[in-house]
């Protein structure tokens, strides 16, 4: 699965968790998700859970700091997925 495909899936998941938000502006950069969309801690956990289901991977709590931005998240996910 390419980085671009994973990015697309991640944007879809964020859109499902935050259905009232415009997720089209989320780009692969260092801007935290919470600066782009209104997201609380429960939303974040929803996104993590969706990722674990989607890719059958484990994301321990200690790794949550790697999921702040789109770039961070893709850097973290790609080795696990491949």
């Amino acid at each position, binding site marked *: 699965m390419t980085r671009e495909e994973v990015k697309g899936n991640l944007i879809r998941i964020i859109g499902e968790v935050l259905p009232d938000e415009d997720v089209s502006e989320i780009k692969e950069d260092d801007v935290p998700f919470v600066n782009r969309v209104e997201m609380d801690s429960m939303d974040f*956990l929803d996104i993590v859970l969706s990722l674990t289901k989607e890719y059958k991977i484990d994301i321990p709590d200690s790794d949550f700091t790697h999921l702040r931005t789109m770039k961070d998240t893709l850097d973290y996910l790609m080795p696990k997925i491949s």
Partner: protein
Amino acid sequence: MDNVTNTRIVITGVGLTSPNGNNLPEFRKNLLEGKSGITVFKDKIMGEVLAGVCDYNEALYQSKKERRRGTRAGSIGIYSAHEAIVDSGIDLSLYNRANIGIYVGITEHGCAETVVECFTIKEFDYNPRYVSHNFNPKGISNNPAGEIALNLKITGPHYTIGAACAAGNIGLIQGLQMLRLAEVDLALAGGVSETIHAFPIIASFKNSGALAHHSDPAKASRPFDIDRNGIVISEGGCMFVLERLDDALARNAKIYAEVVGYGINTDACDYVAPNSARQAECMQLAIYKAGIRPQDIDIINTHATSTPLGDVQEAISINSIFGQYEDVHITNTKSFIGHTMGAAGALELAGELPSFADAMIHHTLNLDNLDPACKIPNVVRDKPLKVDNVEYILNNAFGMLGINSTVIVKKYAG
């Protein structure tokens, strides 16, 4: 204590969603026109079952995120509470929201949410790692009331009242009591149900031979009829705005009715089977508190759920008190909408309230042949009945583990 018990409490707003109407005028119209709300509902496990399903506009008062985070019962409660407030004409910005209470009757809560999680983790070999962190706030028993509080930013007390299928009445009673105790200045009180989404409950009724079946969904719920064969489970909700009479008069509110009597008691004899003697005592208690006589009642909305055994018990209890009074008219709402469980007491009472204004009594649908074992007097059947005046309405709601409730409301005439 007299000052407390004498404080007069009135209904000044009604919000509801039922299988045959999403507001009181629509609900009432369909009751008078004999329109059933029962349909075929497809459940993932049970397949096709007969049920009452609501089709209110969820987006009216909730964001998409609220709907995703919340439950069906919460959504029904939010819709009903908003509609009740709109109907009451109250401007919430004029109230201290810490002095508003939310009291929601439920038969059960959390079963539907548990089912969803079980389906989810089944895909992952039942690994509990995949249980949603949202399960607890969704499945916890105060959820429907708490979602209303969150949505309306009400900071007074909120809780649900678990009282089986008597809960809708008891939610109303709780609101009345809290107003009388001056714990709150405004009460949002009633009941909700999402039980059609909980297959174990449907299966449990079916496996005990208590689930209705009929080739025509509209004819499946038929209380007191000789051919009845069980309950039709439905979702629904009804929330009332309750106020102290003085407060309602001060703001020149529309007053639907005054709540003048209630009774709650317990059979204490069986997990499921009802007891006609205790039901009769419950109605007598409500009549006593209302300070009236049995013959003063104009309409009895029966609890009867269309089960072979349960309907007989209520018929016996009603006969024991009202059998000799030909002006006490009996009707049933579940024949139209099925059993809305925790909502039933409140929702069915709401459907009767317009009788104070139009003096019409809706009929009991599908009562083609009255069961000789249910020899209730003056049951309204075949078509609505026009009477000279309706002064008092008595509303029964009974539930498992022998919980009984009766509410009596009176026409408000100033």
